[in-house]
């Protein structure tokens, strides 16, 4: 029994990382239909900027705040300098631009920071919390808490706020959105800024557990993307559930079958789900309205 509990805790820890990364994908996707492949680099920047600001003497909360603001600025710049200039380009072209941006950000981080692995202290120490013969780190709870808060924020943003609805309208039909008075350039800048800030937050919460380095973003983005696809791209609830589900499948496979099949099992489940439900578990099917 304590085994099952330990595997669950492990799955929730890893799943929270995936969920946080997956949540970052939703805003840009909802605003433009673009899957932002530089999302992992936002996560990396969040971790790395915090590490270096903290090492330079800033207290951890200040370093984290700086990382969120700086990464959001990077996101807005990415939109201003690369996405906005490709006005009128197809979604596929924009996705390829984000791949280029991800390679650029990785290279810049390698030169600007360094190539070593880093971490900073956990928020509430490293003493594990024992529950029923299993243990979980306080930082895992911080990550789960962070994922829940981000999810709730996004849910309210998209369903309750006018700006959130403007974001959805922009994705649905950019021209029509402009005609009803929505500043679509502002919506795009906002969505990149917010996505980057969520990515940075994910990096800050996860780094004490996952560690970080200039190239940590690639693997995170891949798993986060898979989680977002499983849950349904663009749906914050789907991102949350998808992330936790992938983490739990991995942990259970590692625990009960063999750690060799861990990644394979997660992807087999994702493939099976997408085969039966191409929009993911909670995604809306795309409808062309006439």
């Amino acid at each position: 029994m304590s085994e099952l509990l330990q595997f669950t805790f492990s799955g929730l820890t890893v799943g929270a990382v995936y969920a946080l990364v997956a949540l970052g994908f939703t805003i840009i996707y909802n605003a433009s239909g673009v899957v932002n492949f530089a999302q992992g680099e936002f996560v990396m920047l969040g971790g790395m900027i915090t590490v270096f600001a903290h090492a330079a003497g800033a207290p951890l909360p200040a370093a984290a705040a700086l990382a969120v603001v700086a990464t959001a600025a990077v996101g807005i710049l990415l939109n201003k300098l690369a996405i906005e200039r490709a006005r009128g380009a197809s979604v596929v072209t924009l996705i390829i631009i984000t791949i280029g941006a991800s390679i650029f950000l990785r290279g810049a981080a390698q030169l600007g920071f360094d190539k070593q692995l880093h971490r900073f202290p956990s928020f509430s120490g490293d003493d594990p919390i024992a529950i029923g013969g299993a243990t979980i780190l306080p930082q895992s709870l911080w990550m789960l808490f962070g994922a829940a808060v981000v999810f709730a924020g996004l849910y309210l943003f998209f369903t309750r706020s006018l700006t959130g609805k403007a974001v959805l309208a922009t994705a649905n039909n950019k021209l029509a959105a402009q005609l009803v008075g929505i500043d679509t350039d502002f919506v795009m800048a906002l969505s990149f800024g917010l996505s980057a800030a969520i990515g940075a937050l994910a990096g800050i919460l996860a780094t004490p557990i996952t560690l970080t380095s200039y190239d940590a973003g690639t693997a995170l983005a891949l798993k986060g993307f898979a989680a977002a696809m499983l849950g349904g791209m663009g749906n914050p609830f789907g991102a949350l559930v998808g992330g936790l589900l992938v983490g739990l499948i991995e942990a259970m496979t590692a625990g009960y079958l063999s750690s060799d099949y861990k990644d394979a099992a997660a992807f087999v489940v994702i493939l099976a789900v997408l085969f039966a439900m191409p929009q993911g578990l909670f995604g809306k099917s795309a409808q062309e309205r006439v």
Partner: protein
Amino acid sequence: MKKSILLSLTAAAALAVGLAGPADAEIKIGSTLAVTGGASFLGDPEAKTLKMLVDQVNAAGGVNGEKLELVQYDDGGNPNKARTFATRLVEDDEVVAVIGGSTTGATMAMIPVFEEAKIPFISLAGAVVIIDPVKKWVFKTPHTDRMACGKIFEDIRKRGLSKVGLISGTGGFGKSMRQQCLDVAGSAGVEIVADETYGPDDADVTPQLTKIKNAPGVQAILNAGFGQGPAIVTRNVRQLGIALPLYQSHGVASKSFIELAGEAAEGVRLPASALLVADKLPDSDPQKEVVVGYKAAYEKATGQPVSTFGGHAYDAFQMLVAAMKKAGSAKPAAVRDAIEQTKGFMGTAGVVNMSATDHLGLDLTAFRMLEIRKGDWALVE
């Protein structure tokens, strides 16, 4: 990087045409290392070490009256790139010897090129397959993963233990070391009672460790891997409150491991070269002078703490220069024969005695068993 090399080559060529002097004959040494990418923690100190040593030798008048020139490429640990650079080193740069291959993958991809071109090649990568079976033109300086397994099992037996839970990374290093450890376990009198793996990007390995913890009779845990994995394994072992002795491989032998693993690293043991404990060696230790000298020079030149990986490049370079001096020429064939006759060479990895059947020349005594105490390395003896 490539561009700047091209640029400097063009500049060098222009200079050579302009000066066209007879006396400036240079010995060209080639090198391709993983200066960037996932294995940059290997290639970066190696590249810096080579550059520092070439400058040192040239400042002292060169080898056999000729200056050395280092032609260096960055393969990022990618075997395809490494092979392309190997061909370029042979055909375009016409080097007399090559030091490099930070990773086993890159090294194995380059071996056929140098074997065919008959150029001596000293690898800085770990796996035993590089020199077993012996290849005529290929040598290496780091201890093998097989020796690391041997050294760890020896220490486990000394503590009166024998049942080991093995956990390894699925990267090249972890895979190879896992295989070697399984191979030598029997003859070392050790029984592997659990055999788990983790991926290079895994953030949590508590399920695997829970299984090891529950394996019947397990007395010690051995982790084969490098990168972030060992730090996460170490933290997870403490998280689960597992009190068994934990052994890591020589792949984590750098200060950053202690920083990343934090307090959880206390009591962890690993085999490593004497370089890490240079200051703590007794004055009577024959290796002390070499490791203290290299450590001081490297830290002065780069401002970064020394790592064992830079030491591998140091050993390779010093052996190569000694061989050139001994052969009295820089002809590849003569240099190769001289490297093979290396005897009693004291490097950062230990005493090297090469022979026609042993192109590594190290034995188990070259490894020191270290334990992490109060956030620093300590010798276990």
